[in-house]
């Protein structure tokens, strides 16, 4: 198992790989991917997520749904690093004939659900958690959502359902970077108080520094042992575009790839 320092380095490495993947593409969701890098590394490399390409009985594995499907760049890198995909295949991202597109597809090893339209993942995750309950299995279902996604009504339908049915094997992680595609969330349809909303829907709510692997592992360390009948919502305070200074907190980078000097600067900033 990697220690905190190694995991932090891994997150930095993932960011650099993300830039390599998109190369000279005209558009890609780089910034949304960078805000959840530490979360993904904590889940996969940090061992919170009980998955493996071959060794684990697929029925017993934990489920992971990237409900904010547009943030999949980092997930592809992590899956390659975990052995689900080859690194060669990363180079095919969005190329003709590739199965790696800008939103994750069920046919890709390691991807549990096809996503790309916001607001679907939590219901599907709740369904998986319910299946685990019905089948008396102890896997946990994780759903990584964006904060803007919480503007979708379907999220709250799922939230009500999950708490009503006491799905304590369901963990929603909200990537709270406070930006959506066009503007800050609080200027479009304000979400605050987001923790209170989730609490009022019957969830246990925790807050975490989404870029501190130490804090993430500590805050979520007891997901398998916590004594609660409530599903868990982890609101991760993050920065969109984290790691590339000119992208951070800037809405225009939602679906934009740095060019020329910008790319050179981005590479320097993410170089390990």
């Amino acid at each position, binding site marked *: 198992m990697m220690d905190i320092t190694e995991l932090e380095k891994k997150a930095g490495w993932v960011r650099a790989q993300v830039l390599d993947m998109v190369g000279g593409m005209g558009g890609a969701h780089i910034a949304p991917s960078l805000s959840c890098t530490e979360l993904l590394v904590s889940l996969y490399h940090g061992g919170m997520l009980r998955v493996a390409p071959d060794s684990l009985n697929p029925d017993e594995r934990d489920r992971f749904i990237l409900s904010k499907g547009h943030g999949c760049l980092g997930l592809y890198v992590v899956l390659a690093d975990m052995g689900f995909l080859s690194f060669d295949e990363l180079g095919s991202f969005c190329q003709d004939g590739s199965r790696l597109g800008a939103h994750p597809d*069920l046919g890709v090893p390691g991807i*549990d*659900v*096809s996503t*790309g*339209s916001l*607001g*679907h993942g*939590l*219901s*599907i*995750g*709740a*369904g*998986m*958690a*319910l*299946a*685990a309950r*019905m*089948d008396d299995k102890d896997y946990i*279902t994780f759903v990584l959502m964006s904060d803007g996604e919480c503007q979708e*009504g*379907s999220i709250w*339908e*799922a939230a*009500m*359902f999950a708490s009503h049915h006491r799905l304590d094997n369901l963990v929603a992680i909200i990537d709270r970077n406070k930006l959506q595609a066009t503007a800050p969330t609080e200027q479009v349809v304000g979400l605050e108080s987001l923790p209170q909303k989730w609490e009022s829907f019957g969830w246990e709510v925790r807050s975490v520094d989404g870029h501190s692997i130490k804090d993430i592992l500590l805050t979520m360390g007891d997901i398998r042992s916590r004594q609660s009948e409530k599903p868990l919502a982890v609101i991760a305070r993050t920065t969109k575009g984290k790691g590339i200074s000119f992208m951070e907190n800037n809405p225009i980078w939602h679906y934009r790839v740095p060019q020329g000097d910008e790319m050179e600067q981005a590479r320097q900033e993410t170089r390990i």
Partner: protein
Amino acid sequence: MRNAFFDALCEIAVHDEQVILLYADTGALVLDEFRKEHADRCINMGISEQNMIGIASGLAMNKKIVYIYAIVPFVMMRSFEQIRIDVCYQNLPVKVVGIGAGVDYSTLGPTHHALEDIALMRSLPGMTILSPSDDVMAAACAKMTYEIPGPVYIRLDRTGEPLVYKNGAAFSDGLSLLSHGRDLCLIGTGRMVHMAQQVAGELTKHSIDAGVIDLYRIKPLNKEGLLKAIGDSRYVATLEEHNVIGGIGSAVAELLAESGKTCGFKRLGLPDKFCQHYGTREYLLSQSNLSMSQVTDTLSKWIIE
């Protein structure tokens, strides 16, 4: 028809623990029976149809065969995107059971009418569409939906009588040639099949030899079987309790146009406007020229001319 379908499904669920039924706060006595038999596998999802499809998908991705049930517009229009992506794109064993075909809920207004459902479901890759015409077929559809591996939409009526079929009838081709007509082939679906039979009887008084086809599997369309059943009828008409756009009228029109077959063709169904009437079903249909006598009149004038 609902009772026939769910009674048969209840029996299937006895033998397969993976069968789950979700419903969106839509009551029926037959559901109470299902719930009594299989309480742990029958869940009232509340008034949250989008969530219902998502939950169904999550369950179906974990080896369950999931039936979801509500009034047609709520179970499949409100949550169309979830059906499109979560169910069809991922090709999951989720069976969408809609009650209230056409203007079945004739006193409840256009929010409860199902005039666009066939059009919507036809456009989804991988979706099978079943439209039973009576209780016998509805009961058989329970097994059919169970045996089809992927997504299914079944369009149920609250009324399943008078019967079109005898008990024990087998359904495998997606259509039944109920009678052959030298002059006219009248293709109906759902409860309109019974009306089609009545109309065919009336048309003999106008010396028009009309036959009837029950098109119960709208997608995938048995194109070869349908063309063969139409045979050499000089006129073909479709009859459905659905908008004339996108339903079986459109499906048959597409088939005929591409087959190169020469024949007169007419679609009979609800016009392209919302049905703003309240009253009996017969009244609503008559307002759209779809009573039995009106259909007979329309067809006889068309053919005679």
